[in-house]
């Protein structure tokens, strides 16, 4: 059937494309309902990616954080109207590596079209049903699932019982990491380090809230999470290496366009472990949906992240939403009426 896809053709230029959508047995036909704008989408939209990358990947439908309602499922697993989280990862072949890190996996709104579409047709493996999560918060499930993935990786690999953890970054990523660390390790002493005092005020549940200039070398963390990204992640990593205890664990999560310097001498001297995590797999989505459905406190904490909801009824509304996304503290969600 004819499907309308909203693609970025050039920076700040979105056009409609009509495409033939094949709906086969085994697939779920879904109408995207709420879409959340990610920093990665904004880098494409505002032309902040390498021009060569833009030339190669555009036209491209943006957005990889979304949920929708089922229109049809011939298998009968889902009923019409059921709510499902849309998974952006299109797994590559083999099972040697996790699906989210296989080199031949495709990620929506990067190497494959994202969810700015009238309808999407997905295999059952790329949707996770949910209920009892507010419709706006459900839109950021993908981002939460990345953090679930990171925190669980940390818990699997860390060799010492975590007691003092430092989280660098006062944005949505840092907030979610803090909320999840408090969920999984309630007794941990959590320090969040950021640049904006008003944003840090939102981290009510952290034990300590500091601005970067308040960090001193006599502070000691046994593990740290980097949720900064961009060029500033260099100085954040530097502070982490200075304040972390020997054999500590540093989780890197912020995306940077340019290479970031790392003081490898001190990494070696302290015997540190640096691990990168940025993409989640199906198991992380399932876990995220489970904890979000079950834990009222976590649900309330995540709701704080929805800075604004913009109704999208035409392409001008898409432009408005992307421009507004630059100004909000945390996340902007699009109520997708197209």
């Amino acid at each position, binding site marked *: *059937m*004819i499907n*309308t896809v909203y693609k970025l053709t050039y920076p700040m230029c979105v056009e*409609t494309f009509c495409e*033939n959508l094949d709906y086969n047995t085994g697939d779920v*036909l879904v109408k995207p309902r709420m879409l959340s704008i990610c920093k990665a989408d904004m880098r494409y939209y505002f032309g902040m990616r390498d021009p060569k990358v833009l030339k190669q990947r555009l036209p491209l439908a943006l957005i990889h954080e979304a949920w929708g309602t089922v*229109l049809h499922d011939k298998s009968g697993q889902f009923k019409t*109207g059921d709510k499902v989280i849309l998974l952006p990862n299109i797994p590559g072949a083999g099972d040697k590596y996790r699906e989210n890190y296989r080199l031949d996996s495709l990620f929506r709104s990067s190497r494959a079209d994202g969810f700015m579409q009238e309808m999407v047709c997905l295999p059952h493996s790329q949707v996770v049903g949910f209920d009892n999560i507010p419709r706006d918060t459900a839109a950021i499930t993908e981002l939460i699932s990345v953090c679930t993935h990171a925190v669980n990786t940390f818990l699997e690999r860390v060799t010492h019982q975590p007691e003092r953890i430092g989280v660098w970054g006062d944005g949505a990523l840092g907030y979610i990491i803090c909320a999840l660390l408090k969920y999984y390790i309630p007794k941990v002493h959590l320090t969040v380090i950021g640049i904006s005092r008003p944003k840090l005020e939102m981290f009510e549940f952290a034990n300590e809230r500091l601005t970067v200039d308040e960090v001193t070398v006599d502070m000691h963390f046994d593990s740290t999470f980097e949720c900064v990204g961009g060029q500033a992640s260099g100085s954040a990593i530097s502070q982490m290496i200075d304040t972390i205890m020997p054999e500590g664990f540093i989780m890197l999560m912020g995306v940077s366009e340019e290479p970031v310097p790392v003081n490898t001498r001190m990494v070696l001297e302290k015997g540190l472990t640096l691990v990168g995590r940025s993409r989640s797999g199906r198991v992380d989505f399932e876990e995220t949906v489970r904890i979000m459905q079950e834990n009222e406190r976590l649900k309330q904490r995540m709701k704080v992240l929805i800075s604004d909801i913009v109704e999208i009824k035409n392409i001008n509304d898409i432009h408005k939403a992307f421009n507004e996304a630059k100004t909000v503290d945390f996340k902007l969600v699009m109520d997708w009426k*197209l």
Partner: protein
Amino acid sequence: MVIGGIVAGGIGSRMGQNIKPKQFLDLAGKPVVVHTIEKFLASPEIDKVVVGVHKEWIHLMNDLVEKYFDGNDSIAIVAGGSNRNETIYNIINCAKEKFNAPADTIMVTHDAVRPFLSLRIIEDNVAAAREYGVCDTVISASDTIIQSENGEYITDVPIRKQMYQGQTPQSFSIELFEKVYGSMTEEELQIVTDACKMFFLRGYNVHLVEGEVNNFKITYPFDLKMAMTLMGDESK
């Protein structure tokens, strides 16, 4: 109940040399009307679909339902009438007979030759028909509209921002349509072929639903070319 009433009664007289009516012409590997029915079936708002086809083409429509929809029993086919309103009337009778459609059934009537209809327009139509009783899908006029009563001279140039171009769907309840259609004189029925005009003439407030430029009607060869281009020329 909500029923999609697809008006496919045309015989293709404006399409030039094509033998088949335009709703049966190929677009990206499928007949135009198949794309339209697919969109109605995809909509969670729609329970059943009734297609009104010129009686000479019922056999072809039956074949298409068999081929593309595996004989889906949510689709019924009925012979169209001599004009649009009569076709809608036949569609309603068919819906009552085949699907036991009650009087308060919302009928979303749509041109078969507007295959780029969106789910959003269907959703807005159903909501507006429920809230206001009757609605019409329109887009703001982009060209200045010129009125000429004799075809030679301008008799009026209406203010453009008050002008809209009518699209479809047009939606209303079965009982409302029957009431208004039944009140029309023979003479009026000959002149008034648009369902919403009937409602307007009988004093109803016809609510406007925002249409889309893509939801254009395939009438002329140019339109079909435009449709093919939108689909990436897949049907060349």
